[in-house]
């Protein structure tokens, strides 16, 4: 049931229908991440998980705009939302994190190392951007019409390799979408303690046009990403989509040391809440019930294989 939700083509839907679809998708990601944290507390998850709570609009908005049949997605340690948006494969992801053989990488990769079809993640910040550029260049050479999308965060934008990637992407006109999730924190450090100057003004200096949007508005993310991707497909060359958002959960699993007032303030404007105001509390609660039921069934089935 959940997978079907992710296989719907949203381009053909009306704005209202699409809004509902996006809400359900984001909700499914949100609930899955919460279940994973829960499984961790139960001691069933080996290692750690980096959840994308609060950033669901970035993942769903962008992946919904991609041509999932051929486009390439590269992501990082906080990639569950990107993976689910790309594949709808909740079973494969949860099983992978539980270390089961039916996991998408048979338990070898775990949370940070995922691969399915044209999606690749890895756990080294700044490692994937140059690879994404290379992938895009290969697709261009082989004339497949595919483009690459690389998700990165404000934290990764302190790695030099990101700027090497931007430079090479612009120099060689690579069709890469740099999808930056400015979630304001790199682990426990606020971005302003890590970066001098402006983050969003950097890519243009390398010749990569940047569009800055509210990353918590899923429709805006979807529309903007779609526009940039279309431009890339006709004109070629890289684009940066700079999405302002906020990480609601802790970096991985552990104490959140940020000021509670700050978290509460951001919770008030997080992507699901924004849509709830439009879609109505009752309808949203019903989606919550349905999706939670379906998800819990999967989670319990997989978790029982461990106990």
């Amino acid at each position, binding site marked *: 049931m959940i997978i079907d939700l992710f296989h719907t083509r949203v381009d053909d839907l009306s704005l209202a229908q699409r809004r509902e679809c996006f809400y359900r998708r984001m909700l499914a990601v949100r609930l899955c991440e919460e279940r994973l944290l829960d499984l961790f507390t139960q001691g069933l998850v080996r290692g750690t998980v980096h959840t994308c709570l609060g950033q669901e609009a970035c993942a769903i908005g962008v992946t919904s705009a991609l041509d999932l049949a051929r486009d390439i997605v590269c992501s990082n340690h906080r990639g569950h939302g990107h993976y689910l948006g790309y594949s709808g494969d909740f079973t494969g992801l949860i099983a992978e994190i539980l270390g089961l053989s039916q996991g998408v990488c048979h338990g070898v990769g775990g949370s940070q190392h995922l691969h399915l079809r044209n999606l690749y993640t*890895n756990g080294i910040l700044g490692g994937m*951007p140059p*690879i994404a*550029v290379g*992938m895009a260049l290969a697709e261009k050479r082989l004339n497949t019409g595919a483009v690459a999308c690389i998700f990165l965060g404000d934290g990764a934008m302190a790695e*030099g390799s990101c700027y*090497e990637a931007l*430079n090479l992407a612009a*120099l060689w006109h690579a069709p890469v979408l740099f999808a930056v999730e400015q979630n304001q924190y790199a682990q426990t450090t606020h971005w302003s303690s890590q970066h001098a100057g402006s983050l969003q003004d950097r890519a243009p200096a390398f010749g990569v046009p940047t569009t800055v949007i509210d990353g918590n508005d899923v429709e805006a993310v979807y529309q903007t990403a779609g526009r940039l991707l279309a431009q890339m497909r006709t004109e070629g060359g890289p684009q940066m989509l700079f999405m302002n958002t906020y990480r609601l959960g802790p970096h991985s699993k552990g104490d959140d040391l940020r000021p509670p007032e700050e978290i509460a303030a951001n919770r008030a404007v997080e992507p699901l809440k924004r849509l709830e105001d439009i879609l109505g509390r009752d309808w949203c609660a019903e989606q919550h019930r349905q999706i939670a039921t379906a998800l819990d069934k999967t989670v319990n089935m997989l978790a029982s294989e461990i106990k």
Partner: protein
Amino acid sequence: MSTFLQSLQTGLSEALSDDERVILLGEDIVDPYGGAFKVTKGLSTRFPGRVLSTPISEAGFTGVAAGMAIRGLRPVVEVMFGDFLTLCTDQLVNHISKFSLMYDGVSVPMVIRTAMGGGRGYGATHSQSLEKMYMGIPGLQVVAASLAHDPAALIRKAIDDQNPVLFIENKQLYPQQIIDALDREVSVEMRLDDASYPVAIAKNGSFGIPDVTIIAYGGASRAILSLMRRMSREEINIKAVFPSLLSAMPTTIFRAEVDASAPILIAEEGSAGFNWGSEVASTLYEVLLPALRAPIRRLAAKASVIPCAAHLEDSVLLTEEKIEMAVLDLIA
């Protein structure tokens, strides 16, 4: 009768010609300059659009090449000096070597070629032999051509390999003649190791058990082959074993070709300690004890920076003289 450099040029040219997926990337590799050591000279002219000149972004362009390889091209990256490999190390260790081990159906068929070695007075950061740092990384193959191999065939084999290869060249080898079949002083036979990479067995005469067996690779072959020629006039029978694949021990070939009753010397250009010779010696002890008569001797460069001035450089690096002294000492 060709030089090491000419052979590499031929190999790359044939690879570009035969396989349209092959693409070259590196700093200053386009014509008319044709690369710091001229290995790519002429190629950008003959194969337009297939030879890309990169900015000075080793991590960046190595990662780009990895992405290209994953998506179906066959990139060959040139890192100008082996000393600069450190800048690509994250890509090599955490990405390129791991993807095929973690992800079903993903392979990274790329070659990173680089020039190692001193002896030209370039100083501490342009003279090293750092390949030892990249051996023992699961999923990464390290290959080096010697004067006893056919560099053209070896680079083509590396390019055709479905798995990533770090291909080690040597600055001082480029102008040297590779051994041909008509050489009267040194004879070479080829064996294939378990991964089908060639191991060259060189002898400076016709004999059964040698006076000493030398095990080495790549750049060290220059001094060793020169020594072998001189020593054949001195009736000292030397058998040299030159593997090309360094990151896996050719145990079967060691067992067949290394005689336990003759002294064994391992000579390498990298710095002493925690190196290729350590692994070779361990393997030989496993394979040849208790028949070994004496401990295996290892020679390497001093564990120090490589100085610029010639006499200082010679005191640190592996030289023909030092190898000769070790050989004579082992036989005495």
